[in-house]
């Protein structure tokens, strides 16, 4: 039934609830326990290395291990409810054990990108003030510098092949230590994760403590995760996500897929890092809830690292970003043997280019559905319903979500007008950690303003036209870089494209394109001629520059601001 205020509910399937009243669980530990009760002996997580070596934990094992960690954190490390625990590791079996253990201890999880420099780590630690850090040995050498003057009392060290069978674990350990030297000696006081679990278990046996006691008083409004964002724009801000935010967003995003995903039967490829909110909520929480087997990939670079996972497991669903889908469609082994059990894939993190979605459809015979969200919204806001995709849109709002476009004066605009997208719903964060001023900047009442410029069709499909500040104005006409990039990326000779505005004597601003080309024969004239076929004249790049690669943030977004800064300094030099 379509709601007058929410026309998009007409596109929901017959079994989809338009409104989700309250979360199905009191808190995340209850969800984790419930999944373990239902799927106990089934395989929950398999970590697959590039050479095919792997380790697996069942739902019951993850449940038992995370209990033991919770007891360790509370009884041995002496943490209390609400204390922060930083988690810094690539996808591996330790991740779910650690994350679930932190929740069960009633503590707050702080995701830290393992590729951060010591300096970046120090900034985040200083802000989040974690009482404990659980880190993989490969990156532990940065900890002493990152915690200088600000020590973290408890450090738990794990490894990528943790919980693997002895033989592959030993081989991986030897290779990491002596061959690629990716693991350096850990030079700070620490305990190994398996030892911490043993210590936790010993406490349970001795004192008869139960991990369940720690989260009895944790409710939907309590903080679960501090998820840092905005690292590429200066000040890092920790979005405060509550148990309720995450539980609700998990249900909101799975509600639309409910009819197509079978409980206890799906095999999910998790090549995106779990420390990112997209994989965290969708792959880790939602698919655990669904009883799926999660194939964890510690490092998907180079993409051949994914080959064994695709060969050895019957992947039915995967999440990815535009770069990943595009990259896979350029790998010969993927083209030769596309996955045969895939139902469809989910894209997020950055705009999915229609050329890439189309190519993916050709190669795999399945859809890639685009979702939209932000760290501050736990993250899912919109999703394309299967079978009802609409090119160029990010789909429709998920259940219990309101979306409106706002004008510069902070008032909601009528449907059909372009403005800054605002979101209201149970997935919107509590605010930024210790930054009320920053929170105030993005909240209008209970609406969260995303900074993305969009427009909603009359029936509820949403288009992102751009980020607020990236817009180019050519002789008074607005040009949205995404639109131009989409056209450029569809050219067969173009690998990647980025578009910015540069000052222009005649037009005020001119469109400039930076191109990574696949074919060196491609020249600017040919590309402009191609653009003219697809775009109004003012949108066609006036200047085309070819590059070997484009600057990207650590999450793979092309950094237009860097290109703009370069272009500006070039102009200044002239």
């Amino acid at each position, binding site marked *: 039934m379509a709601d007058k205020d929410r026309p998009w509910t007409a596109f929901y399937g017959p079994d989809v609830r338009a409104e989700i009243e309250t979360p199905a669980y009191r808190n995340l530990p209850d969800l984790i326990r419930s999944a373990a009760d239902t799927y106990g002996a089934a395989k929950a997580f398999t970590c697959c290395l590039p050479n095919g070596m792997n380790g697996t934990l069942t739902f019951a094992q993850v449940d038992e291990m995370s209990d033991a960690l919770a007891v360790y954190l509370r009884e041995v490390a002496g943490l209390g409810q609400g204390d922060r625990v930083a988690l810094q590791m690539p996808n591996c079996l330790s991740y779910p054990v650690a994350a679930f253990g932190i929740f069960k201890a009633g503590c707050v999880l702080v995701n830290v990108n393992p590729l951060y420099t010591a300096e970046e780590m120090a900034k985040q630690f200083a802000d989040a003030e974690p009482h404990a850090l659980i880190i993989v040995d490969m990156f532990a050498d940065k900890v002493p510098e990152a915690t200088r003057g600000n020590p973290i009392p408890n450090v738990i060290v794990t490894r990528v092949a943790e919980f693997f069978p002895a*033989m592959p674990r030993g081989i991986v350990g030897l290779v990491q230590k002596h061959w690629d030297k990716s693991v350096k000696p850990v030079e700070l006081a620490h305990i190994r994760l398996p030892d911490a679990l043993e210590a936790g278990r010993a406490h349970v046996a001795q004192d008869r403590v139960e991990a369940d006691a720690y989260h009895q008083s944790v409710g939907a409004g309590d903080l679960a995760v501090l998820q840092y964002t905005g690292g590429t724009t200066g000040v890092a801000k920790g979005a405060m996500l509550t148990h309720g935010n995450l539980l609700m967003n998990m249900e909101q995003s799975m509600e639309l897929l409910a009819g197509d995903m079978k409980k206890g039967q799906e095999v999910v490829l998790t090549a995106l890092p779990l420390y990112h909110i997209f994989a965290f909520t969708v792959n880790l929480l939602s698919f655990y809830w669904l009883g799926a087997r999660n194939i964890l990939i510690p490092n998907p*670079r180079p993409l051949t690292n994914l080959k064994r996972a695709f060969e050895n497991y019957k992947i039915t669903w995967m999440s990815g970003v535009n770069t990943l889908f595009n990259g896979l469609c*350029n790998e010969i082994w993927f083209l030769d043997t596309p996955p045969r059990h895939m139902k469809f894939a989910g894209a997020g993190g950055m705009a999915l280019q229609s050329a890439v979605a189309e190519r993916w459809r050709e190669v795999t015979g399945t859809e890639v559905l685009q979702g939209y969200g932000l760290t501050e919204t736990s993250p899912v806001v919109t999703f394309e319903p299967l079978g009802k995709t609409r090119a160029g849109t990010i789909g429709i709002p998920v259940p219990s979500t309101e979306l409106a476009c706002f004008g510069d004066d902070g008032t909601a605009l009528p449907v059909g007008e372009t403005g800054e997208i605002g979101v209201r719903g149970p997935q919107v964060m509590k605010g930024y950690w210790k930054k009320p001023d920053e929170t105030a900047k993005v909240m209008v009442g209970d609406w969260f303003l995303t900074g993305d410029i969009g427009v909603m069709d009359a029936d509820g499909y949403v288009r992102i036209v751009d980020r607020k500040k990236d817009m180019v104005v050519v002789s008074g006409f607005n040009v949205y870089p995404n639109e131009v990039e989409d056209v450029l990326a569809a050219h067969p000779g173009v690998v990647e494209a980025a578009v910015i505005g540069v000052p222009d004597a005649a037009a005020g601003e001119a469109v400039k394109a930076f191109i990574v080309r696949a074919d060196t024969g491609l020249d600017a004239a040919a590309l402009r001629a191609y653009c003219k076929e697809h775009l109004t004249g003012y949108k066609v790049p006036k200047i085309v520059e070819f590059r070997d*690669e484009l600057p990207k943030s650590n999450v*793979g977004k092309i950094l237009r601001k860097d290109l703009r800064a370069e272009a500006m300094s070039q102009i200044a030099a002239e």
Partner: protein
Amino acid sequence: MVGAFEQALLALMIFVIMLGMGASLTPRDFFLALKRPQGLAIGVISQYGIMPFLGFLLITFLPLSDAIAIGVLIMACMPGGTTSNIFTYFSKGNLALSVLMTVTSTVFGVLLIPVILVIYATALDLQIPRENIIATLVLLLVPVAIGMVLRKMNANVGAVTEFLGSALALFFIAFIALSWVPRNWGFLVTTTPATYVAAIGLGLFGIAIGYSFARALRLHPRNARTVAMETGIQNGPLAIAIIAFTFAGEEAQSYMAVPALYSLFIVITSTLVTLVFRRANTAAEQKMPDGLL
């Protein structure tokens, strides 16, 4: 010469190595290689068209004695062996295609080797020992098949087998290269420069021509690397067995000089080519950004 024990040990090593190679493969890899048989056809053409002709050119333009010339020709007519599979694996080529090419060229060899020798050396009537051909195929296919089954049964067992097999392969390559020189020092110092050129050139030019040929026919670099290795790397032990089977005494010894020299230098040449191929493969890899990917 190597004794029976060493021979058995060598066979066992190759068995374990091929077990590891097999554990890196899936049936789908073979179906794919068979689905596009142009790679196989190109392999047979380069193996029995280009290589014998290259051998013929070498003996025509180099000042070689008759015995050495015959050795070069015999070597040039040989099919590929497990060594080519091992180097294909290390140079990130298409191992399934490599195995199929070795099988095809070995089976075709029974028929084609005599025909080619009639074209280039009318007087030479080689006896091809069937049991060696069969042994070559068994030592290739049986462990590969077992390796594939192991991987199918348990991905970890497969991955560990592959790891151990490839580690043994590296040891094997180093062992051949390092142990051969002191054992044959006397032979090395008495060999003429022209013979060196022929023995080294056969492998080196074979790889280069095989690669160019495959690329000219628009094969993917991965498959072109495979064709190159298959073309240039010949089954040295088979050549030695054929000579031992056909000839006797002094005559057999003099014909064996080139296969023996070739077998040493092909390991060195292929190792260097593998390093080049691996570098090219890495350079051609898509660059993925940090973080989300």
